């Protein structure tokens, strides 16, 4: 039998005005197991807590019931009080007689009666409480960053600078990501490569950073602090340790028809290639689907010409198994496929390009060496139309496009317009926009410069149709300010296509059991207060994987995610939530139903020897990993035999509360 103390708080007049606290304390005295009951003005005050501590010692209390405000308010306070008096913190129960009683009822008799019932329920529950001890689990002091774009690189650098090992897994042959494809960056117009490539080099040279390029996460097990990842390092058919990146193979390769992904398919590359000059690692890769040797068994020119002997046609995918304490998702984005918007003739004319394609055209290292020419005939364009919000801000029920604002398009379109006017003052530039969204430091000034200084023709309205005519594109759109429909004969049309999460994100989310929204962006643990953490413990978010953002925001978030990771990796061990599920071995059938509903993958099965009146021998039994379990209780209800129960909210505890209320 427990020895229970009941403490009824007045909360000044907050409770005492509508609840007769003395009557509650008196009624509690008559409940079984209650050896002490009292009331006080402010239980949470230092004096009130001292009173609780003394009573615990004096009356050798084994359980404490506080009738006070919501447990969401002071449960932690009173648990600490109990601990300081030598009682297990989980032997404290709160009866919420303020928010859920005194504050909602006006009648004293009614309020008092309900408060007594709530106190009884808490007493009934505490009778069945058992001391709980939070377990601990060790922390592997290494982080995994998935994605080697600017988000991943920055996160890795910050974590590594704090002294922890970091692995970057990048699915492409080189790190750098989307930022490496950009020409200039807004709002400063400094060259993207000039600010990114030093960071790439820093990452490559950092002794704590290990770049695993051309690789993807194959599977993941474990939990916060203790993940085990299997990483598939795809065969690049090049010995990375030997390749010097001299590029001779890429020149000798006779198969020239592969589309150059880095240049958004605007030109071609060989079957063996280095994505771009500053690639890291600066190592070639062979596209086996394109390579003549892989298709016919002949050729092998690259092998013959490689003085380093780095070509390895027999290389196989390799699986690396590594352990991590934390995982950062930095999988980034891709532009949506513009061909769904056939009103803009993207599929019909090479002169209709997406902004990222335009970025490559304007880039000195791009397919045109930075010279602005029409893709169709290589001629200099005289009039360019930019269309914003292509596929952004559509409704959920629209047949195509995304419901969100892609956030970066207004600014990069202003940048493109400005760059064109700067380099080629003879080119007329029109921008169709719905709203020019420029919240950001120096962003609106930048946009205004495009309008005022560079005379870019901003038209508030949208293009309804682009039609391909003999030697130009006919653009028909509305000008809402002038209330007219306008027709422009343009040489090029640039579509500011929406961005969407990288297509690998969804599968990754499933693998990490990290939740995602309907657009496949990773969900943050709290949209305001925990924006860089996933609800899954130990998984953190960096960059556009979480939602559209520009480079400065991405870098800021990357740093924030790194700080969270460092905070985790600093710890030698993690304290677990003790209110977790556990299976009664004698009752468990091993039927696997609990495993199916567990959102965290906390349940596994073991064959164990069991000796109970009903069963003797070896049987399959559910085992809950207390470090992963978050205590939702989904398993307890799905369990047919009642073997699965939840500590702190056990079947018998909840039923005791029900009984006390329905008495």
């Amino acid at each position, binding site marked *: 039998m427990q020895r229970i103390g009941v403490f009824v708080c007045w909360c000044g007049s907050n409770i005492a005005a509508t609840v007769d606290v003395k009557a509650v304390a008196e009624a509690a005295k008559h409940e079984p197991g209650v050896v002490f009951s009292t009331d006080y003005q402010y239980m949470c005050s230092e004096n009130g807590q001292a009173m609780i501590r003394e009573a615990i010692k004096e009356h050798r209390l084994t359980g404490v019931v506080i009738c006070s405000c919501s447990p969401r308010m002071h449960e932690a306070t009173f648990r600490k009080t109990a601990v300081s008096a030598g009682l297990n913190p989980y032997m404290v129960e709160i009866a919420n007689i303020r928010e859920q009683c005194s504050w909602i009822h006006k009648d004293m008799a009614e309020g008092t009666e309900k408060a007594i019932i709530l106190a009884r329920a808490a007493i009934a529950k505490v009778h069945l409480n058992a001391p709980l001890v939070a377990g601990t689990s060790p922390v592997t002091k290494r982080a995994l960053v998935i994605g080697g774009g600017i988000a991943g690189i920055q996160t890795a650098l910050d974590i590594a600078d704090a002294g922890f090992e970091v692995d970057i897994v990048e699915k492409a042959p080189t790190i750098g990501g989307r930022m490496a494809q950009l020409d200039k960056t807004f709002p400063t117009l400094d060259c993207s490569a000039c600010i990114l490539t030093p960071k790439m080099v820093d990452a490559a040279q950092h002794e704590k950073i290990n770049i695993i390029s051309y690789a993807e996460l194959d599977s993941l097990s474990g939990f916060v602090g203790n993940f085990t990842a299997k990483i598939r390092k795809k065969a690049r058919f090049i010995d990375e340790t030997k390749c010097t990146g001299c590029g001779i193979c890429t020149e000798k390769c006779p198969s020239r028809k592969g589309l150059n992904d880095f240049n958004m398919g605007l030109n071609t590359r060989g079957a063996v290639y280095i994505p771009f000059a500053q690639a890291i690692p600066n190592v070639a890769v062979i596209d086996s689907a394109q390579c003549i040797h892989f298709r016919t068994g002949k050729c092998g020119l690259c092998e013959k010409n490689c003085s380093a002997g780095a070509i390895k046609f027999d290389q196989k995918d390799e699986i690396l198994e590594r352990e991590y304490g934390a995982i950062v998702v930095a999988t980034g984005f891709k532009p949506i496929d513009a061909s769904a918007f056939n009103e803009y003739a993207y599929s019909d004319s090479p002169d209709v390009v997406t902004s990222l394609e335009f970025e490559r055209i304007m880039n000195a290292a791009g397919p045109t060496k930075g010279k602005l020419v029409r893709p169709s005939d290589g001629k200099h364009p005289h009039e360019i139309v930019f269309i914003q919000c292509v596929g952004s801000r559509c409704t959920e029920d629209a047949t195509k496009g995304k419901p969100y604002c892609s956030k970066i398009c207004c600014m990069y379109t202003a940048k493109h317009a400005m760059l064109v006017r700067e380099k080629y003052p003879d080119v007329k530039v029109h921008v169709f926009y719905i709203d020019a969204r420029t919240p950001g430091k120096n962003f609106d000034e930048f946009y205004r410069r495009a309008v005022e200084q560079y005379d870019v023709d901003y038209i508030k309205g949208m293009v309804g149709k682009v039609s391909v005519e003999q030697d130009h594109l006919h653009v028909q759109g509305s000008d809402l300010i002038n209330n007219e429909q306008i027709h422009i004969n343009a040489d090029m049309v640039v579509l500011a296509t929406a961005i969407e999460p990288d297509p690998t994100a969804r599968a990754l989310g499933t693998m990490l059991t990290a939740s995602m929204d309907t657009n496949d962006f990773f969900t943050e643990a709290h949209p305001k207060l925990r924006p860089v953490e996933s609800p899954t413990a130990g998984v953190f978010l960096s960059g556009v994987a979480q939602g559209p953002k520009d480079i400065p925001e991405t870098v800021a978030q990357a740093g924030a995610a790194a700080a969270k990771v460092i905070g985790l990796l600093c710890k030698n061990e993690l304290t677990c939530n003790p209110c977790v599920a556990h299976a009664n071995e004698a009752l468990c059938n091993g039927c696997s139903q609990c495993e*199916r509903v567990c959102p965290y993958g906390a349940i596994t099965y073991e064959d164990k020897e069991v000796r109970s009146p009903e069963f003797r021998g070896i049987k399959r039994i559910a085992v809950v990993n207390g470090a992963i379990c978050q205590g939702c209780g989904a398993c307890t209800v799905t369990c047919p*035999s*009642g073997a699965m129960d939840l500590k702190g909210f056990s079947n018998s505890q909840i039923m005791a509360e029900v009984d006390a209320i329905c008495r």
Partner: protein
Amino acid sequence: MQEMIKERVLTLINEGAADRVLAWETGEFFYDRTPKFFDKNNVNDLKYDSFCGANVTKYLIAEMPKEGKTIVLVKPCDSYSLNQLCTEHRVNREKVYALGVGCRGKIDVEKLRTMGIKGITAITEEGDTLTVSTLYGEKKVARKDALLDKCLCCKGKEHKGVDEVIGDSEETSVGDKFEMVAKLEAMTPDERFEFWRGELSKCIRCNACRNVCPACSCIKCVFDNPKSGVDNKAAADDFEENMFHIIRAYHVAGRCTDCGECSRVCPQGIPLHLLNRKMIKDINELYGDYQAGAEIGQRHPLTDYTLSDDEPSVVHERGGANA
């Protein structure tokens, strides 16, 4: 067919593919067929005929700790129960050789009795006709009129996931299996309450339904566990009669293959399958057609969800007039 089965079983055992067989033997009366394990020494006593209505798959659970492999004879409908038991890891499929046996519906002697045929001494069948020998002479009965209720909503002639099939099967279902459920749904709540009070008050808590049910396979049932808060050995009042059957139906919801054994064995003739079938009908209507045990490894509807599931208030909204 019985002889072919015996021969095949013997061959399998002699070849070392299995060690024993789970099938039926004759019980106290000539038409009783009781589950039994045979080895090669007594396999000759194995019976398989039109009286083998019982579903024997549940007996495999206790067999699992034993060494070796067990052959189990399964009718098409039994194969669903076997798969469900494997899904729930109660039976290890690798330790079982599932031998499908042909079935054209099983005979319910009780039905003959309710036709007024008394003093039955033997039953022979030829085609679609049964010849019932009684103390008072012979009677001819159409086979379809003497089938078990569960055969009237047969799950089809296909064995699901068995290793081998001997003999042909026929589908014997007549009409819509949800007809009676729909009829109850159409009643007013008070009429339904009266109907179920009338039925459930007959319950004597013999636990036959629980013991025969392949889904009720817990090592220790909640009703036997004093800590579960619902334990009781006998129904002391109306509520407990209700409670037992509600909880039982709920526990098997999504896992029940609708094998109909609960109603078959109920000594009081309570149509227990109507509770399970209601759950099945709801699942089909709300979460899409689902047949428990159709294959191994299925995720049953109550351990699954979609983002757009109906709200529980759908129960209140359906058939609004009877609210």
